[in-house]
C-alpha cells in the first residue's frame, strides 16, 4: 500500500487542482440545486396563492420524483472529469515539469494513484455534496416524494461514469506528450472501436436491411453495452438501462483495463516524451493511422453504399487531409508531414482488411439457408432497437407485448410460411413497402437453438395464417394473460390516476390498490381477461393504473383502465381522486366560461366533439393576410360562436356524468397566429342523442365562409403574378407538388415532382409562364377549397440577385385527370419529365 498510495502526496495533489475543484463543485452544486429550488419557490408561491389549507388539500399526496430530475446536472461532473485529468497531469506535457515530478521520491505508481485519488476526491465529493443538498431540498418540497435509495444509486452511477471517462483520459495522457495529441488520442481511444464497428455493421445493415443485427453475432457491438450511450440515455430517464449486467461487466473491464494500462504507461513513460506528440516514431505513425482510420472507413462506407464516385472522391480527399493535417499539427513540421506519406499504404491495408471482413459477412448472410428443415421454430417479435441507435427506437413494450415477445411455435405450416417469406425477402430485399406484401419481424430458431431475427415480406394470407397459428398456441395465450407481479415494478413507478391527471398517491397505497386490482383480475373469466387485455371491456372508467418495470431484464410498461366491474379497486380509488375529479370538472366548467369571453380574433379555431371535427378554421379577419386558409368574416365567426355556446350551455355534462365518464367532450383548438402555437379547450358535454349532435354539426357547417375564400383566392392569383414577375432574372425556381389521376376508378396514386428553372433563359421562362397558366386555370374553386377538397402546389423561388427566397402555395383541384397532368408535365418539364412514385 505504501508503494501505491501516499497521503501527503495525495493532499498536495488535492491542493494542486484546488481552483478547478472549487470551480467544478460550485458550478455543479449550484446548478443542481436550481431544479429543487425552483420547485420549492413554486410551492411557496402556490401556498401563498392558494392558502396553506387549500395547498395541502391539493398536495396531500406527493408526486414522485423521477430518477432523471433528481439531480440531472451531475452530468457536469462527467464533462469536468477529463479537465481534471488534463490539469493534474499537465506536467507530462512539459519537459521541466515532467522532470520535476519524476524526480520526487515516490514510485511512479504512487504518484499516479495518489494524483488520481485526489481527482476523484474532488469529483465524488462534489457529487456527494450535490446529492445531499438536493436530497435536503427535495425533502423540503411537500409536493414531491422520492425513495432515499435513489441517492446511493445516482451517486454510484455518477462515480462510475467519472471513472469510465477518467480511464480513457489518463491512458491518452500517459501515451502522449502534448495537449493536442492527448485530447486526440483520448477521443480515439474513446470511440475508435465503436466507429469501426459502426461502419462495419452499417454496411451490413445497408446491404441486408431485412436482417436484425441485434439478433446476430454482431450484436456484441450494440451500443447497449457502450457505457456513454447507456449513461446519457439512462441518467435522464428511468435508469432501466443500468439493469443490464453485460453493460456493467463490459464497462468495468474497460475501466479496470484502461486504468491498469494508464498506470503501466505512466510507470514506463520516459520523461523526455514531454512536448512530443508521441513517445516514439512508431507510436506517432500508429496515432496518425488511428486518427485517420474513421475518415478512411467513411470513404469505404461511402464506396459500399453510394454509387456516386464524386462523393467517394470527396471523402478520400478528406481522409488525406486528416492524415496530413494530424501530422502537421502534432509535429509542427512540414518535413514530417511529407515523410509520413509511405505509411498511407498501411492505412490502405487496414481498409482492405476491413473490406475483406465486410465481404466475408456478405457471403455468410447471402448463403444462409432458408429451407424449412433449417428452421426449428418461428414467432413474431418486436424489434425495439437498432445496433447503433442512441436509444431504443421504439416505445417500451407493454407487459403483454413483452410476455408474448419471442414466443415461437414449431408448426410445419408456420415454418413453411416463414421459409417462403424469407426466400422472397432475400430475393427482393429492396422491397420494403409494397401493397402486395406486409412486413413483420420474425424470430427464427435454428435447429442448433440459435435465434435470429428477420424482417420478412408476407402476403396478407400468409401473414393472417401465421398469426392464427401463433394465437392458437396455449403458451402464447397464457403469456398474454399474465399480469406483472408487484415486485417487477420499478420503485415508485406504479401509479394510479384519473384521466391524465398527475399521480399524487403514495407508492404504498398504490401497491395496495394494485393487489386489489390483481385479485379482481384473477376472478375474471378467461374470455373477459382477453377482453380486458385488449382494452375491450365495455365498462371502462376514468381510473387508470400505470407503471413501468423490469421482467427478466426486459423493461415493460402497463396502462390498464380499471373497469367498473372491479368494485373493490374502484372503491379504493374513488376517495383518493374525488378532489381530482372535482378539480377537473371545475376546470372544464371554467373553460366554458372562458370560451364565452373569447373574441375569436386572435387566432383561428377548429371545433370537434370527441375527436370528430365539426368545423375548421373559424377565424376573424386578422388571419387573412399571409395564410392560405379559409377564414370567416366577423359575422360568420359570431354566428359560429353563438351556436357553440348555445349548444354547450344546453348540453354541459353534470358532475355525476363526468365522474362516471358518461359524457362526451367538445374540444376547441385555438391556433394563435401571433405566437405560432395552439391550445385546446376541452368542455365535457352530456351524451346527447345522435340527432341532436347532427343538428349542431349542421348548424356549424352551414356558416358560410365562401365569400372570404373567394377573396383569398383572388389574393393568391395576385401573388402568383407578383411571384412570376420576380422570377425573370438570375433565379432558380423549384416546383413541388403532388397530384393523382383517376385510373379506371382505382385508388389514386400520388406523385411528387420538382422543376428546376434557371431564369437566365428566356425560352425557359416562357415554359414557366406556360406552367403558371396551367396552374392558374386549375386553381381550386372556393367551395372545394373551403371543404378541403384540393391539393397544394408549392413554388420555391430563389432570386440570387435580390438574395431572397419566397415560397408560394397554390391550391389546385384535388383530382386532375392523368391526361391533363401529362399535358402540364410536358409543358413544364419537357419530354423527359420524371415521375417518381412516392414511398
Amino acid at each position: 500500500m505504501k508503494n501505491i498510495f501516499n497521503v501527503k502526496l495525495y493532499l498536495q495533489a488535492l491542493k494542486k487542482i484546488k481552483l478547478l475543484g472549487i470551480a467544478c463543485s460550485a458550478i455543479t452544486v449550484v446548478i443542481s440545486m436550481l431544479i429543487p429550488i425552483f420547485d420549492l419557490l413554486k410551492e411557496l408561491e402556490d401556498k401563498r396563492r392558494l392558502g396553506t389549507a387549500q395547498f395541502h388539500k391539493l398536495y396531500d399526496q406527493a408526486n414522485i420524483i423521477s430518477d432523471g430530475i433528481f439531480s440531472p446536472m451531475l452530468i457536469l461532473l462527467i464533462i469536468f472529469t477529463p479537465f481534471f485529468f488534463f490539469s493534474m497531469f499537465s506536467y507530462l506535457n512539459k519537459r521541466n515539469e515532467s522532470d520535476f515530478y519524476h524526480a520526487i521520491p515516490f514510485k511512479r505508481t504512487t504518484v499516479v494513484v495518489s494524483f488520481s485519488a485526489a481527482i476523484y476526491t474532488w469529483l465524488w465529493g462534489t457529487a456527494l455534496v450535490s446529492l445531499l443538498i438536493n436530497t435536503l431540498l427535495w425533502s423540503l418540497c411537500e409536493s414531491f416524494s422520492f425513495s432515499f435509495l435513489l441517492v446511493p444509486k445516482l451517486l454510484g452511477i455518477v462515480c462510475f461514469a467519472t471513472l469510465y471517462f477518467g480511464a480513457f483520459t489518463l491512458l491518452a495522457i500517459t501515451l502522449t506528450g502534448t495537449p493536442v495529441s492527448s485530447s486526440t488520442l483520448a477521443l480515439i481511444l474513446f470511440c475508435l472501436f465503436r466507429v469501426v464497428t459502426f461502419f462495419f455493421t452499417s454496411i451490413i445493415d445497408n446491404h441486408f436491411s431485412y436482417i436484425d443485427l441485434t439478433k446476430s453475432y454482431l450484436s456484441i457491438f450494440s451500443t447497449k453495452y457502450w457505457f456513454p450511450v447507456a449513461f446519457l440515455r439512462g441518467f435522464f430517464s428511468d435508469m432501466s438501462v443500468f439493469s443490464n449486467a453485460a453493460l456493467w461487466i463490459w464497462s468495468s473491464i474497460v475501466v479496470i483495463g484502461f486504468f491498469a494500462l494508464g498506470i503501466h504507461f505512466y510507470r514506463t513513460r520516459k520523461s523526455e516524451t514531454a512536448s512530443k506528440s508521441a513517445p516514439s516514431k512508431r507510436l506517432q505513425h500508429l496515432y496518425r493511422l488511428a486518427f485517420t482510420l474513421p475518415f478512411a472507413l467513411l470513404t469505404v462506407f461511402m464506396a459500399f453504399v453510394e454509387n456516386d464516385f464524386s462523393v467517394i472522391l470527396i471523402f478520400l480527399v478528406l481522409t488525406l487531409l486528416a492524415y496530413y493535417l494530424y501530422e502537421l499539427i502534432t509535429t509542427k513540421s512540414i518535413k514530417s508531414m511529407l515523410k509520413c506519406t509511405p505509411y498511407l499504404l498501411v492505412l490502405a491495408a487496414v481498409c482492405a482488411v476491413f473490406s475483406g471482413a465486410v465481404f466475408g459477412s456478405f457471403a455468410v448472410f447471402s448463403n444462409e439457408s432458408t429451407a424449412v428443415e433449417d428452421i426449428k421454430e418461428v414467432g413474431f417479435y418486436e424489434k425495439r432497437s437498432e445496433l447503433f441507435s442512441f436509444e431504443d427506437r421504439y416505445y417500451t413494450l407493454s407487459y403483454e407485448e413483452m410476455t408474448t415477445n419471442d414466443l415461437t411455435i414449431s408448426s410445419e405450416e408456420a415454418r413453411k410460411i416463414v421459409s417462403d417469406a424469407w426466400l422472397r425477402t432475400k430475393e427482393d430485399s429492396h422491397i420494403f413497402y409494397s401493397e402486395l406484401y406486409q412486413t413483420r419481424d420474425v424470430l427464427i430458431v435454428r435447429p442448433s437453438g440459435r435465434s435470429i431475427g428477420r424482417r420478412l415480406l408476407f402476403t396478407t394470407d400468409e401473414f393472417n395464417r401465421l398469426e392464427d397459428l401463433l394465437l392458437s398456441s396455449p403458451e402464447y395465450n397464457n403469456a398474454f394473460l399474465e399480469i406483472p407481479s408487484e415486485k417487477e415494478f420499478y420503485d415508485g413507478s406504479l401509479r394510479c390516476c384519473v384521466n391524465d391527471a398527475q399521480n399524487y398517491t403514495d407508492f404504498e397505497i398504490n401497491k395496495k390498490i394494485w393487489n386489489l386490482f390483481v385479485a379482481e383480475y384473477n376472478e375474471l373469466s378467461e374470455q373477459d381477461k382477453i377482453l380486458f387485455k385488449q382494452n375491450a371491456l365495455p365498462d371502462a372508467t376514468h381510473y387508470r393504473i400505470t407503471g413501468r418495470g423490469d421482467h427478466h431484464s426486459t423493461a415493460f410498461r402497463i396502462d390498464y383502465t380499471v373497469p367498473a366491474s372491479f368494485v373493490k379497486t374502484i372503491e379504493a380509488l374513488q376517495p383518493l381522486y374525488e378532489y381530482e375529479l372535482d378539480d377537473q370538472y371545475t376546470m372544464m366548467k371554467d373553460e366554458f366560461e372562458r370560451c364565452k369571453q373569447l373574441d375569436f380574433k386572435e387566432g383561428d379555431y377548429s371545433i370537434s366533439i370527441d375527436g370528430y371535427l365539426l368545423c375548421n378554421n373559424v377565424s376573424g379577419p386578422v388571419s387573412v393576410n399571409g395564410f392560405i386558409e379559409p377564414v370567416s368574416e366577423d359575422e360568420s365567426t359570431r354566428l359560429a360562436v353563438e351556436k357553440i355556446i348555445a349548444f354547450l350551455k344546453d348540453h354541459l355534462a353534470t358532475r355525476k356524468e363526468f365522474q362516471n365518464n358518461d359524457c362526451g367532450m367538445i374540444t376547441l383548438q385555438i391556433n394563435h397566429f401571433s405566437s405560432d402555437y395552439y391550445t385546446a379547450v376541452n368542455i365535457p358535454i352530456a351524451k346527447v342523442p345522435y340527432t341532436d349532435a347532427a343538428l349542431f354539426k349542421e348548424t356549424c357547417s352551414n356558416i358560410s365562409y365562401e365569400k372570404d375564400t373567394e377573396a383569398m383566392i383572388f389574393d393568391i392569383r395576385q401573388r402568383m403574378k407578383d411571384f412570376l414577375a420576380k422570377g425573370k432574372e438570375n433565379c432558380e425556381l423549384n416546383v413541388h407538388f403532388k397530384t393523382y389521376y383517376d385510373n379506371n376508378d382505382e385508388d389514386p396514386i400520388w406523385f411528387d415532382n420538382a422543376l428546376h428553372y434557371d431564369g437566365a433563359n428566356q425560352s425557359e421562362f416562357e415554359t414557366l409562364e406556360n406552367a403558371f397558366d396551367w396552374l392558374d386555370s386549375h386553381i381550386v374553386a372556393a367551395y372545394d377549397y373551403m371543404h378541403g377538397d384540393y391539393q397544394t402546389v408549392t413554388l420555391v423561388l430563389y432570386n440570387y440577385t435580390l438574395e431572397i427566397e419566397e415560397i408560394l402555395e397554390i391550391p389546385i383541384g384535388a383530382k386532375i385527370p392523368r391526361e391533363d397532368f401529362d399535358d402540364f408535365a410536358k409543358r413544364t418539364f419537357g419530354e423527359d419529365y420524371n415521375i417518381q412514385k412516392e414511398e
Partner: protein
Amino acid sequence: MIEAVGITKYFENFKALNNLNCKIPDSCIYGLVGSNGAGKSTFLRLISGVYKPDEGTILMDGQPVYENPDVKKNILYVTDDLYFLPQSNMKRMADFYHAIYENFSYEKFNELTETFKLDPGKNFNTFSKGMRRQAATILALAAKPRYLFFDETFDGLDPVMRNLVKRCIYSDVLDRKTTTIITSHSLRELEDVCDQLAMLHKGGIVFESDIQDLKTSLFKVQIAFGDPFDQNKFPDIEMVNYSQKGSVANIIVRGDRDAIKAKLRLMNPLVLDILPLTLEEVFIYEMEALGYAFKDMID
C-alpha cells in the same frame, strides 16, 4: 558515493551518453563542465532517477536510483528550467517540499529567505529569473538532502547573488557533508566552488580530476637565457607545452613547483617567473595533452 558504470542513454537514435563511467565521492562538490548537448543535464537526470539508463547502472551508496524512493528521498535535483507549482509562492512550494522530503526544515527555509531577502508570500510570477533561481536554491537547501544536483545553477544570477549561492552551498557541504554536483558550460563559474571537476564531451567523461591537484600540478614558467636555447635545454622537466619567442620561453610544466624552480634557478636564467594557471588554461593544456581540441568543447 555515486557510482555510474557504463551508462548509455539514447534519445531515439541519438546517443546522449556513451558508456559513461564515474565515481563521485561523498561530501564533495563535483563540477561537471561541457558544451551544450554534451550530456550534462542527461547525466543529472539519470542520477536523479528521472531517466532510466538504456545500458549500465547507477548506484548511490550501492543502491539503484531509478524507481527507488528510499534513495531518491536523499536527492534533490534543481533543474536548469525551473518548475514551481502554478500560481504558487515560496511558502506553497515549501509546503510541497515539506510533504515530499522528510528532512525539509522550515527553520532553514526561513533563515535562507531572510538571507536572500526574498518575500516567501509573493507569487513566483512576480519573481525575476534570478529570484526564481535563488528561490529554487533555498528550497533545495532547506530540504536537506544528502545529494544536491544543480543544473546551470548560476545562470541568471548577478555576481553578488552568485557568491551568496556559492557560500550557501559551501556551508551546506561543510555542515551536512552534502554531496553536490554542479553543471555548467563555463569553467570560470566552477573554478572557485568545486572540489572535483569532470569534462563531459559527446556523451562521455573525457577528463576528471581533483581541482586542487589540477591547479597545483601544472604551472607556467617564463624563462630567458643570454645564450640561444631550445626545449632540449630542459631534459629533466616534464613539459606539457613549450613555446618560445626570441630569448623568452613559456613552458607549461607538471611537477613539484619548488623543486622545479630550484632546478631552473641552477641554470642561471636571465629571467625566471613561475606563474599560476587559470583553471581554463589547465584544462586546455591537459586536454591537448590527451589529444582533444579543447576549444571545441567549451563555449
